[in-house]
């Protein structure tokens, strides 16, 4: 077994400590010789310094590019952070706005004066406008899952497939971002297709 193991071993050239020391000392002496030669020759010294300058210039370019990227990213992170917090707040605000709309519907059915409520609703709408929150117009449009959420289907052969026939809950958009999709009812021609 031991013989087999020995035969598998890869021969390694062992470098003695003395050899390493002599190598190191040789390199050091070469380096000092070079420096002495360069310091003696001002043109070579100038070239060396020029090389250093070009290296630093290259580094500076990279650092500047990194800094510009970082400042751009920080700026967009701040904007996104602020916008997402506004959107979160607006989502909660819209729920209260919906309650007011429902209250208005009930009041108008009972034939009670709703002027006060109307002015509150106007204020709420102007606040939403201030923060670029706009309702998604869905009625009559073709269903788009990026803006709408379908929760029921009706059969209607007169309309195109996936036409929105009813808005069940209004959706809102802010800065090209959906705060809340519109809940909709859509039409299908399925029954006709089956009969065909």
């Amino acid at each position, binding site marked *: 077994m031991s013989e087999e193991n020995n035969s598998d071993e890869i021969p390694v050239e062992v470098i003695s400590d003395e050899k390493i020391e002599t190598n190191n000392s040789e390199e050091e002496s070469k380096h000092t010789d070079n420096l002495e030669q360069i310091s003696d020759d001002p043109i070579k010294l100038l070239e060396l310094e020029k090389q250093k300058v070009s290296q630093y210039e290259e580094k500076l370019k990279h650092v500047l590019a990194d800094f510009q990227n970082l400042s751009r990213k920080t700026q967009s992170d701040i904007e996104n952070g602020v916008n997402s917090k506004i959107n979160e707040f607006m989502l909660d605000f819209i729920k209260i706005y919906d309650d007011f709309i429902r209250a208005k519907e009930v009041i108008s059915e009972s034939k009670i004066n709703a002027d006060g409520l109307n002015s509150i609703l106007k204020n709420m709408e102007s606040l939403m406008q201030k923060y670029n929150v706009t309702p998604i117009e869905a009625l009559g449009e073709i*269903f788009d899952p990026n803006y709408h959420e379908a929760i029921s289907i009706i059969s209607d052969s007169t309309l195109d497939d996936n036409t929105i026939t009813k808005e069940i809950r209004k959706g809102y958009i802010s800065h090209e971002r959906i705060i809340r999709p519109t809940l909709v009812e859509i039409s299908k021609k399925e029954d006709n297709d089956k009969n065909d």
Partner: protein
Amino acid sequence: MTKIIGIDLGTSNSAAAVVMGGKPTIIPAAEGATVGGKAFPSVVAFGKDGELLVGEPARRQAVTNPDNTIVAAKRKMGSDETFKILDKQYKPQQISAFILQKIKKDAEAFVGEPIEKVVITVPAYFDDNQRQATKDAGLLLVLMLLELLMNQLLHL
């Protein structure tokens, strides 16, 4: 050093997080707030023209297109069952890979740099087959990205 994201590949919803500034941060879906908060619904759908919808848009159209919408693919992980959509067979691993791809894409947009490493969780009760299927989903994600890269190179 590139960032590593952790993905909870769930049955109904999936979630992802990344350590930013020393703190774990949930990665929001590109669609913004969803039913599961910031999570990604584990829903994959194919439109009539074969266009792929993953996550929140897929969930929103599930009622209108139930035949071509796949939910809870995780329950079939590790089994031989397939989903037949528009005359094509999809394994649960492939469906999970679509979800992982969507999470990776949104994570890259959120973090602002390419994501090269992910950690995917599995439930403790998952057997070897189910664990392997989840790993396969991760490998499929890599293959899909390679395919995308190859296509881009071909168009250059």
